[in-house]
């Protein structure tokens, strides 16, 4: 896939490296000449194409081939820039998948199709979620917001007393608008099937659409 990443901070460079390693073709755009010069000189991340420019300008996006890109990730440290890059990518270049980083959770409400954002990632939110996931057992932790907030990936570690323990997935009474995506058990991933039986301590990853969170919480937490 052709991926364009706007913002070569630690998040952008990390993503670029990971994606390039996986065999995708990655371009990193940044407005800071020092960052780009260093990236080009040290050739890190390996294989990535660098572009010095303002990703909020149509000319810059055009020059890096956004018209053929499969994914644009707007991951600068500035929410305004991320929204504008997303809007231009969607509206001017019809990029199929636009991902944008939310720096200030107060702005999260704008990161949806109004600005061309398909997936928003809230760094503070995600970090908090990951911390919560690590320390919290028995509560419903939201990890990631998809489709402009219409769908959420959440995680519940089944505590003692959870109504889901010793039950098969089909018997949990989970609403139709939710899907158990994976069950993490003893360091490995269990692909969930209707007859998968849940144990105490299982980390259940579930995709939920907005309206049914409470039902899912009741089924897994109690």
């Amino acid at each position, binding site marked *: 896939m052709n991926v364009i990443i706007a913002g070569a901070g630690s998040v952008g460079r990390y993503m670029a490296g990971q994606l390039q390693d996986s065999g995708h073709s990655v371009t990193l755009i940044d407005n800071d000449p020092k960052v780009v010069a260093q990236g080009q000189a040290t050739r890190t991340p390996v294989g990535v194409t660098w572009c010095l420019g303002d990703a909020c300008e149509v000319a810059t996006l055009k020059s890096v081939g956004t*018209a*053929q890109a499969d994914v644009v990730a707007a991951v600068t440290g500035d929410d305004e820039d991320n929204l504008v890059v997303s809007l231009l990518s*969607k*509206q*001017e*270049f*019809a990029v*199929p998948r636009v991902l944008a980083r939310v720096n200030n959770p107060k702005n999260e409400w704008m990161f*949806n*199709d*109004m600005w*061309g954002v398909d997936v928003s990632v809230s760094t503070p939110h995600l970090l908090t979620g990951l911390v919560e996931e690590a320390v919290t057992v028995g509560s419903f932790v939201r990890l990631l917001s998809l489709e*402009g*907030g219409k769908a959420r990936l959440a995680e519940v570690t089944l505590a003692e007393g959870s109504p889901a323990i010793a039950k098969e997935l089909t018997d949990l009474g989970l609403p139709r608008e939710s899907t158990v995506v994976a069950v993490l058990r003893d360091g490995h991933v269990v692909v969930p099937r209707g007859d998968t039986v849940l144990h105490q301590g299982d980390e259940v990853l579930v995709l939920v659409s907005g309206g049914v969170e409470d039902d899912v919480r009741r089924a897994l937490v109690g």
Partner: protein
Amino acid sequence: MALLRRKQRDDQPIASIELPECTPICDTEPRQWVRVSGKVVRMTARPTSGQPALAISLSDETGIVTAVWTGRREIGGVTLGRKIAIEGVAVKHGDHLEFTNPGYTLLPK
């Protein structure tokens, strides 16, 4: 369109708004800048994420495209049955192309 094409006269300005050269809808491709014209055959309000949006379907004899203008409930002159031209870069939306916030030109009735 022929109605509005005039013979160049000496007193005509050199630079003028050119009438749209349009591509038949059946020949259009997604993700390329294109201009199409036709009749508005459907108009709906399509609110998303809590904000208003106006969606239309445009038909020329060869096919249909849709266009969505975000954050608006109406656009002056854009009504059912009206001939308009729209231009921009469209995405593939199911079996047709969809434009988001395209430029538009009202065509004579």
